């Protein structure tokens, strides 16, 4: 793999086509989960169904969304992170890391929250992606960004933290996602 800006740009361009496919598939699945209840039932990370061998839910649960504002906010966040990754010529690597972070996050949620029966949403993964990008960025900007994420997670864990949605927001997904992103980023950096 080249190290110069030109080489990076070429790599990023090469990763653009699969990235667009992944992005459009994700958006399509997210929208389908909103307007077709059958799709939501098929995609949501559900403990019982997972135990019956429906392993795709480890990935698809992050793409299913409960309502339109939920999907809009998460997809907008994903779009911005994708733009940042693209500017850093790391979109392709981020997508591959996401494919790894999704099941890790799902398994972590199922273990950390034994009473949680179902989970849907992209925000856990978005936290993971942000942590991954920051650890890859390194330097004082990376450190400051990670500190900001840590402060945000701390703020969220305080009692009475306002939640803007009409459904219970699984804040544990943010914490687990950020930690998984950090670890995957560190592992990749060393590798």
């Amino acid at each position, binding site marked *: 793999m080249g190290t110069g800006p030109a080489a990076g740009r070429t790599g990023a361009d090469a990763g653009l086509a699969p990235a667009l496919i992944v992005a459009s598939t994700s958006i399509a699945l997210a929208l389908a989960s909103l307007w077709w*209840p059958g799709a939501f*039932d098929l995609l*949501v990370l*559900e*403990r*019982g169904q997972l135990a019956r061998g429906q392993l795709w839910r480890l990935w698809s649960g*992050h793409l299913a*969304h*409960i309502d339109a504002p*939920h999907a809009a*906010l*998460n997809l*907008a*966040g994903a779009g*911005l*992170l994708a*733009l*940042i990754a693209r*500017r*850093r010529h790391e979109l392709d690597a981020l997508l591959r890391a996401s494919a790894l972070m999704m099941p890790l996050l799902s398994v972590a949620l199922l273990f950390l929250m034994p*009473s*949680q*029966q*179902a*989970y*849907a*949403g*992209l*925000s*856990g*993964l*978005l936290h993971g992606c*942000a942590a991954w990008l920051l650890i890859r960025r390194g330097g004082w900007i990376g450190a400051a*960004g990670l500190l*900001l994420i840590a402060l*945000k997670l701390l703020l969220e864990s305080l009692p009475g933290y306002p939640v*803007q*949605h009409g*459904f*219970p*927001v*699984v804040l544990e*997904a*943010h914490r687990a*996602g950020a930690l998984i992103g950090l670890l995957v980023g560190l592992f990749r950096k060393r590798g």
Partner: protein
Amino acid sequence: MNDMESAPHHARTRILPLALLMIAMALLGGCAGVLSSYGDRSGHSSSVVDFLYPKGTPFEPVEPGTPRIPLPARVGLMFVPSSSSPPGLTVANREQLLEKVRHAFREQDFIERIEIVPDSYLRRGGGFDNLEQIARMHGLDLVALVSYDQISQRNETGASFLYWTIIGAYTIPATRNQVSTFVETTVFDIRSHALLLRAPGQDQRDLQSTGVRSDERRETLARASFNAAVDDMIPKLDSAIREFAMRAGEDGRAELYDRRSGDAWRGKSGGGSIGTWELALLLGALALMLASRRR
């Protein structure tokens, strides 16, 4: 003549001590008899079956079909009315016990609220008509009925012959008090009258006491046994509720649906979502990146 006069006198002097001895024996025997009745047995119970289906109720087959239960559910919790309460179990004790049961329900995420229904709202043999009245009044979906059956028994041990000395009745613990308690919580769907789940609890304990303190000890024992039986029931109730919420929809016992959306109930669920300020932060980061590149 003297001999003839003295004969009845002698007889009187012989009879008098004998009569006094017999009276004394009878009195002592009476006292000891009060203390040692050679075992007695009493029972106190409230039956769900008698309450829901009192004698004379015509048989009505359960309507075919799966009961539809809205979740998170609103539950009413109550003791099944009974003509007699276990000895030593006051109204305050009963409320404390119901609070314990309520706590087991409250910890479940599919329970919206649970209300303790006062005894005065229920009438003996009131059946589902009575429950429906209460459900309408409190806006309930389900009822959890706590019933009990307590049997207490008293037996004298071999040492109880010392009760005849009176002092023995105060000092020798020769009375064996035994109490067996069985409690059960049964949860019914009010609309379909279907039994959804049940959880039993039981306890058996005994205590030796002196003859005079037997009643008092038996009351203490009855209260302690009732508490222990409820404590035994709580974890079973907890797992029965959990199992019901997880399996009822799958095995066809009931159709559980979300009362807010009308969709099938998934159990505790939630979504991962970011907020607008997090989005603004990301936008800021992107803008900074773009600005730094231009420079």
